[in-house]
């Protein structure tokens, strides 16, 4: 009987603490690096979306190497399959790991509430790229491990068989190339990954690419109609619309499958998919597993040239941050510093390391050779305002729903056409912008 009471009391306590967890943080002491590795100690938990790296033991290997330099720090990993969804809800409590990746849908002006400052932006931006993505009032709250180029993963063999040897430079050229692939009949020219949805939101990363302007995204805060002709989003979403409208994508987008798409691209049954350059090693692995040549997998920039030159934005991946409630901030910071600088994980992923002066990965060597302009990220001055306008308008640049509707419109499954849909988006954006900026 007594044990029963204890259980009830414990359950009640759990419930009560769960309810009162939203009080938020007050401490904001910086997570600064320690001078002597031997003096840093503590147990830290690192939240990660890379459940595959937990399974294959590569994270464990990094942790073992880390403990050689920091013998008194114990690193534990926690993998989350639905990273974005779970972490955001956990952030209502104080228990969201010591080191975590900043979820995409947390607005930048909320960073100081949840994360410890890692240092002054003037200082850190000398060492790392993309610090402006997480800078609030001159303090940096997160650092990316690496960045990836935006563009299209494609199967070189498929494109060559269709007689295409040059990267397309306009929407029209791109559509013509896809038509040539379709005429061959061997492959689906383009694959949307509509069902898994998140690949559709990768199109947003190209903002700034078509106009070759790092400030392209920042302009959204002052542009009333981002889908009007000549704007980046018009070029980006117009390309997707035309591709689907010309029936150059898979027949039934609602039953696509991301895991299967890797094999399909690797074996030459898909021509191209718009993703980041991070996808190249995954597609190569799928090609190898299916007995095909991994060198067939290539990467090309977004097909719109400015003044005759193609251009690509290098976007940072997830940014690493320290929980503002962490009890072992020094150890957490030590892990971030070591992981970014010493682990070599960015190189292993064939990505562009955030540490300035690192060499470009092999997948981007052709970009250099062809003279593609590489822009290191989008400007972030107006990121908070843009996020407010976006959420207020319920368009969701960072979520796939509006592009799913775009695909539906393009294939005739939803009412309207490109112009009416773009007009609708423009209207929503303009209205929300008016409320936000006054």
């Amino acid at each position, binding site marked *: 009987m007594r044990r029963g009471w204890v259980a009830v009391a414990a359950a009640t306590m759990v*419930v009560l603490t769960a309810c009162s967890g939203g009080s938020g943080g007050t401490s904001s002491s910086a997570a600064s690096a320690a001078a002597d590795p031997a003096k840093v100690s503590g147990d830290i938990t690192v939240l990660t979306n890379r459940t595959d790296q937990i399974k294959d033991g590569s994270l464990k290997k990094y942790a073992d190497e880390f403990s050689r330099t920091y013998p008194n720090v114990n690193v534990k990993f926690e993998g989350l399959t639905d990273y974005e969804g779970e972490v955001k809800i956990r952030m209502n409590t104080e228990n969201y790991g010591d080191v975590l990746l900043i979820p995409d*849908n947390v607005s930048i002006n909320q960073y100081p509430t949840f994360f410890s400052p890692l240092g002054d932006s003037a200082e850190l931006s000398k060492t790392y790229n993309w610090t402006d993505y997480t800078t609030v009032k001159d303090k940096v709250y997160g650092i990316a491990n690496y960045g990836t180029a935006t563009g299209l993963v494609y199967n070189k063999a498929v494109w060559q068989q269709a007689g295409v040897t040059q990267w397309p430079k306009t929407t029209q050229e791109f559509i013509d190339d896809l038509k040539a692939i379709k005429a061959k009949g061997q492959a689906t020219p383009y694959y949307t990954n509509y*069902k898994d949805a998140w690949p559709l939101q990768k199109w947003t990363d190209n903002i700034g690419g078509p106009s070759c302007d790092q400030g392209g995204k920042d302009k959204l805060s002052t542009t009333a109609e981002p889908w009007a002709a000549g704007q980046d989003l018009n070029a980006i979403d117009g390309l997707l619309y035309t591709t689907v409208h010309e029936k150059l994508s898979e*027949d039934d987008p*609602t*039953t696509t499958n991301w895991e299967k798409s890797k094999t399909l691209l690797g074996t030459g049954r898909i021509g191209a998919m718009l993703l980041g350059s991070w996808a190249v090693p995954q597609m190569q692995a799928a090609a190898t597993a299916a007995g095909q040549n991994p060198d067939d997998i290539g990467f090309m920039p977004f097909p719109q040239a400015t003044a005759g030159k193609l251009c690509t934005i290098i976007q940072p991946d997830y940014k690493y941050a320290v929980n503002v409630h962490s009890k072992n901030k020094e150890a957490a910071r030590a892990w971030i510093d070591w992981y970014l600088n010493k682990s070599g994980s960015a190189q292993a992923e064939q990505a562009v390391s955030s540490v300035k002066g690192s060499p470009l990965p092999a997948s981007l060597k052709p970009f250099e050779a062809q003279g593609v302009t590489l822009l290191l990220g989008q400007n972030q001055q107006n990121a908070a305002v843009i996020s407010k306008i976006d959420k207020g308008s319920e368009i969701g640049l960072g979520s796939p*729903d509006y592009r799913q509707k775009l695909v*539906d419109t393009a294939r005739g*499954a939803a009412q309207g056409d490109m112009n009416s849909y773009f007009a609708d988006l423009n209207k929503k954006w303009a209205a929300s912008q008016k409320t936000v900026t006054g």
Partner: protein
Amino acid sequence: MTALQKDRKQGPATAPAAPAAPTKPALHRRTTRRHWWFTPWLYLLVPLTLLVAFTYLPIIDMFGYSATDWDGISPTSENVGADNYLELFTRPELFKVFLVSGVYLLASFVQIAAALYFATVLSFNTRFRNLFKGILFFPYLMNGVAIGFVFLYFFQPGGTLDSLLGTVGYHGRLMWLGDPDLVNKSLAGVSVWRYTGLNMVLFLGAIQSIPGHLYEAASLDGANRWQQFRHIIAPSIKPIISLSVILAISGSLAVFEIPYIMTGGANGSQTFVIQTVNLAFKFDKVGLASASAVVLLALILLVTWIQRRLVPEERVELS
């Protein structure tokens, strides 16, 4: 009242005092009551704690959130009064998604009819009837997520359904999930497949409470199976049927799991609950989402109430 309490009253400590004064028995009754009035509550403590903690507190919180502009994550939020409700009711496109529920509602009548049919057939001496009961009830035991994934393969172009149709000579290429006119019917079909078994078990239970001699008398009078169903079974299980209809209607208003897993609400399959989830977690409008959840709750209560007025509960006498 109970044997235990009587024993207590006659206990050695209080027994001698009992006959002394007229006021004393009352006093001592009060003391025994003080010990025992909460006995039933002791047994109810655990379920009530769970109920309050996981049902009523969140609902109260939901009402609270619906009056704020909370974004789901920041520690502060502002009170905006009835603004969320105002916004909800001035944007008719937010209610358009209830049209999707209509498809599920029609499907749920198919489901009740099928469940009634199977329950009736299986309540008679059918061969392998326990096996069939098991087969029909099995889908309800499966996890909704697993069902979603299974049916994704089922509906794929060239998938299970297409091959099945191919064996009977139909080779049309229908896009079960890709066609906007078909998608909700396909999804509703999955939900029929899943919940028919549950309805059937409810009906079976009710049918089994009908005394056997009624059938005997009916068949002596020459009633066939349909007549037996029409005049004995259907009237006897009327309360269960009307309960099923209530559950079907509130269920169709609040469809979530199957479309969310299978299409994520894409291609015009968005339901009111999916829309609410999107508002809360994609657009950070937890206040507005809570308000729509409150509206959904009110709607379901209203529909149930109207139904109760139209079909009042009545006792069925079986003899």
